[in-house]
């Protein structure tokens, strides 16, 4: 009954399990250079995930956090045609605040979050809330307060909600990469008209990179799933990213790539000035583009390539890049040796590793 809690689910086991469940086969996106066999299982409800269309992703130059970030965010939102999504909407901004270390760059910078709050108000949002459920820290007041986020939000006119302690409701999953079947998610997330995923551009020591899809982990409440969110690691990190992102369904993504983290991210890595903000309405397309800026081939990141089959657009032929030219905006993020095969142009080695694990963190 609780097989999924007995041991971590490997990619091989995921495929076998999907086959056991008799899930249909077929693919929507073309991203993925053959990570899995040709006959891939499709563990999602096709009615819930219509094929993604063409989409636009904006790459905006921003070299520091003291510049005109409001203009940067406003320009990006306009360039990708997202103004109508904001007007009259209840908006939840979900930054990455998994942990806080004043000497590092783990978090989405609070100044970018505050600038986005202001932009949302200017575009006519009905309400703007910022929510996060830190994955390592249980003391959210420490993480949100010491980082300066709470003070900036007060000045910008947004409320903060601790997604680890907020009221919850049960959500039946419409994808089945894990065997969780359902998630309990904060109503601040499920009832928002627009969820904006605001990740930090970082490498990730288990998943390769962490961007707008992985950032959705912070919506999963620690008081149910533990600190770190061990149930998700146990069920398979990359499979969980897919199911959680498919449940949260962000309608806008704004990536803080002004200063990112390379190497042993998402906590112990080192800062790298990447100088860009990436904005789009399709989180898969945004992650594909942001990975490209990191000189990472998203087609080799298992969870992004899978997400491109049902959750969003991963085919570069259907992603229109606006703003800066991504090819001229690449900053090669240092990768841990086990992820060397994710580098654009690196020899293919089967694509990623099996990063499902029990201990997490």
């Amino acid at each position, binding site marked *: 009954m609780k097989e999924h809690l007995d041991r971590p689910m490997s990619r091989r086991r995921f495929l076998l399990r999907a086959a056991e469940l008799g899930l249909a086969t077929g693919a929507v996106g073309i991203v993925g250079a053959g990570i899995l066999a040709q006959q891939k299982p499709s563990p999602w409800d096709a009615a819930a995930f219509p094929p993604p269309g063409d989409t636009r992703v904006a790459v905006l130059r921003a070299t520091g956090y003291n510049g005109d970030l409001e203009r940067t965010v406003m320009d990006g939102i306009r360039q990708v045609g997202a103004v109508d999504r904001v007007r009259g909407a209840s908006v939840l901004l979900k930054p990455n605040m998994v942990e806080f270390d004043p000497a590092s760059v783990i978090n989405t910078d609070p100044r970018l979050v505050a600038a986005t709050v202001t932009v949302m108000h200017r575009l006519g949002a009905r309400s703007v809330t910022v929510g996060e459920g830190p994955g*390592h820290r249980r003391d959210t007041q420490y993480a949100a307060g010491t980082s300066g986020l709470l003070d900036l939000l007060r000045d910008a006119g947004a409320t903060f909600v601790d997604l680890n302690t907020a009221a919850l409701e049960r959500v039946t999953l419409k994808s089945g990469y894990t065997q969780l079947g359902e998630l309990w998610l904060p109503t601040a997330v499920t009832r928002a008209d627009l969820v904006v995923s605001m990740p930090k551009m970082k490498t990730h*020591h288990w998943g390769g990179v962490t961007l707008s899809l992985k950032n959705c982990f912070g919506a999963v409440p620690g008081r149910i799933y533990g600190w770190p969110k061990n149930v998700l690691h146990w069920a398979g990190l990359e499979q969980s990213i897919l199911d959680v992102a498919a449940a949260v369904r962000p309608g806008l993504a704004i990536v803080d790539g002004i200063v990112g983290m390379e190497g042993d991210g998402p906590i112990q890595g080192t800062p790298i000035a990447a100088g860009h903000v990436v904005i789009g309405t399709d989180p898969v397309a945004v992650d594909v583009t942001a990975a490209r800026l990191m000189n990472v081939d998203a087609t080799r990141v298992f969870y992004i390539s899978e997400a491109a089959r049902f959750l969003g657009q991963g085919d570069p032929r259907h992603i229109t890049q606006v703003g800066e030219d991504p090819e001229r905006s690449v900053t090669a993020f240092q990768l841990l040796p086990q992820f060397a095969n994710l580098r654009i142009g690196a020899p293919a080695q089967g694509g990623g590793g099996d990063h499902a694990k029990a201990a997490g963190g």
Partner: protein
Amino acid sequence: MSSLPPELADRLIRLRNADGGFPPSAGGASEPEPTALAAIALDDAAARGWLERAQRADGGFIVGPAAVSNDSPTPFAALALSPGNAGERAVDYIAGHQAPRLGFDERFPHDPETRGWGWTSRTFGWVEPTARALLVMKLLRPAAREQIADGDRVLSDRECRRGGWNYGNREVLGTAYDPYLQTTAAGLLAVQDRTDPLRDRAVAVIRQLWRAEAGGLGWAMSLAALHANGLREPALEARLSELIGRTNLLGDAVALAWAAIALGPGIERLRIRR
């Protein structure tokens, strides 16, 4: 014995739901962890009544979906309901629900012979759930020597290089990880009775970290851990009181309950007699 500041008691009582239980934050449904901690802090019969009604037939207290089965509130519920049959059944549950052993993994090394307790049933043992289960076993079932020894061994194994604890990984991929204030406080509560330097290192970490880690839950649990160990930190106590007055600890019922435990007679329920 300290008396609970009335203003702090009022802040906590205002969170109580009509069913007698306490939610994690205002407006939510009652849950076992905030209710148990509030019952301890306030010596609250209504909260104990809610816990008795919420207790499962197997003695455990679960929050969240059955498939995940987060039973981590059970130790505090056991403490809130003891002495009595309901508390005994909760302790029985804890004794029967240690985490499974995991094989050694060099990416995040740990003692593979240990178990501890997890946040959720049948997953990895972590520092905070292990610490709370260990504390309650020492308080309510001191004869369970094997499980107590295992819990102590987990905390020894997971101790960070400089002392104290984070959520439970002292090292990942060859990098030493630092301790956190809040989890160090959770660990220190459970090792009050130990005479080895581990306890002293935890105290030193708290005294070093609290000024840098300004947050309600970490401060409140740290004060509780120091007081349970017979130690005082007047500056921390003053800063916590100021933070409560200024921010209401973001309305976090667990943090407010820990503050009330730390500053009131509830701390006596957490003190291990040496």
